[in-house]
């Protein structure tokens, strides 16, 4: 993403946001609620269009892509939504199969097999016949992850995968994020404000502040950072921000 600007009405959310994600890495974007993390993520798959600047995925400018080309790009990227965004009227199996039905030439049996495989991967074996309303928050997030990985994407985008979860379930989700990177070799972008989670899963961490990247580095570099904005966030000390503003 290069010099991206995005405003909603008079509210400027991204103000020159620039960030490069390397192939095979897991990069977390941290920042306060409302900082524009999810907005930045949605630009990557063309769910939002920038007012200015450009987003390049595999060398293609996302904003310039026609609908069919955009769908081809989306086939390479799995998106895990903050609240899972599972289709209420469908079973978990149908949810996970949605992308496969659209994006592959697989037979019904092959799709069923792949769905089972994905549910096993996210530790939801035997949940296929249930409806989203019958799942807990953590199970819904894992089902959302199963749906995102079903088509074997090259990229996985996670929008606050651990928000609102208990520490044990958070650790389970983190383990899955790491597993996706190590076993499936996917490039991941994780939006989070959970620092423990960010340290665990990330190769690099970017701090989003005031519409642009304030700091970018490895988890160790983030821990050692003397930047008051970074320290305020990771240590939960808002008084440090007062000095900045």
């Amino acid at each position: 993403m290069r010099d991206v600007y995005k405003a909603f009405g008079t509210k400027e959310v991204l103000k020159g946001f620039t960030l490069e994600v390397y192939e095979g890495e897991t990069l977390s974007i941290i920042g306060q609620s409302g900082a524009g993390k999810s907005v930045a993520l949605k630009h990557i798959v063309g769910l939002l269009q920038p007012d200015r600047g450009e987003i390049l995925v595999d060398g293609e400018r996302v904003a310039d892509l026609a609908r069919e080309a955009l769908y081809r790009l989306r086939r390479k990227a799995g998106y895990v939504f903050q609240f899972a965004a599972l289709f209420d009227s469908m079973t978990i199996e149908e949810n996970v199969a949605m992308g496969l039905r659209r994006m592959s030439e697989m037979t019904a049996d092959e799709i069923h097999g792949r769905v089972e495989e994905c549910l096993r991967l996210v530790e939801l074996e035997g949940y296929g016949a249930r409806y989203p309303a019958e799942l807990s928050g953590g199970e819904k997030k894992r089902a959302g992850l199963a749906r995102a990985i079903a088509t074997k994407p090259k990229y996985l985008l996670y929008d606050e995968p651990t928000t609102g979860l208990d520490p044990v379930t958070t650790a389970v989700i983190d383990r899955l994020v790491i597993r996706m990177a190590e076993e499936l070799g996917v490039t991941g972008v994780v939006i989070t404000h959970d620092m423990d989670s960010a340290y665990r899963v990330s190769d690099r961490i970017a701090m989003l502040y005031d519409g642009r990247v304030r700091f970018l580095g490895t988890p160790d570099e983030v821990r050692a950072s003397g930047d008051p904005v970074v320290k305020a966030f990771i240590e939960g000390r808002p008084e440090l921000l007062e000095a900045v503003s």
Partner: protein
Amino acid sequence: MRFSVLDPVRALGHTVVTGVSAVGRMGYLAAGAVRALRQVDIWGGLLLGQMARIGVESVPIALFIATFTGIVLALQSSYTFTGAIPLYFVGTLVGKTMILELGPVLTGLALSGRVGANIAAELGTMRVTEQVDALETLAYDPVAYLVVPRILAGALMFPMVVILADAVGVLAGWGTSLYLLDMSSPEFLKGLRLFFRPYDVTFGAIKSLSFGLTVTGIGCFFGFSATGGAEGVGRATTRAVVVSSMILLVLDAFWAAVLL
């Protein structure tokens, strides 16, 4: 708070801009829906389900309304005609009014509540819970997946439901004439046939087709435009019903002026 003389002008300007913007976005959605018709692989498998939900499941409420409308029409026309006009005109009035006006309009208004509200609430919830975005990320065109099958189902099923309601309304009027008005069947049927033209049914069907397009289209539009959680979905649902009911009445007058 201080009042400025420019406040009413600003408010008027805001209303005009909002209205024009909404019409523009409706046009954009309509154009998207026409374009999405090509994606039969997406909407084809969903059409029958929507026809059942929008049409078949609306039959009970439509028939309930038609039955009582037919009864009231027969009773009121008899009350009006007695002593002045031959009673077989009760059949004329019940038939003409049901088929030309009350069948399509009352069914349309009832379905704008049942179908329009249902569509706006469902799509609105999908919008605010990011299910519409999820469809996009799974390479489904949300307009092809959500809007096209609903609008097509509305256009196909509204006329069928209305024709059924017309028939039941006339039957209810006939039954009322027989059992409450001391009329005979030949009398009622004489009146019914007197000014009946098959074109009347065509007129009602055309009108109800336009109502079907309106109710489902407006429901989809406000559902897709919903923002801000449960309150936003509630607001979208209310607007869908109010706006589609108003457009429906305007269309009613339009078709009467153009086709009769």
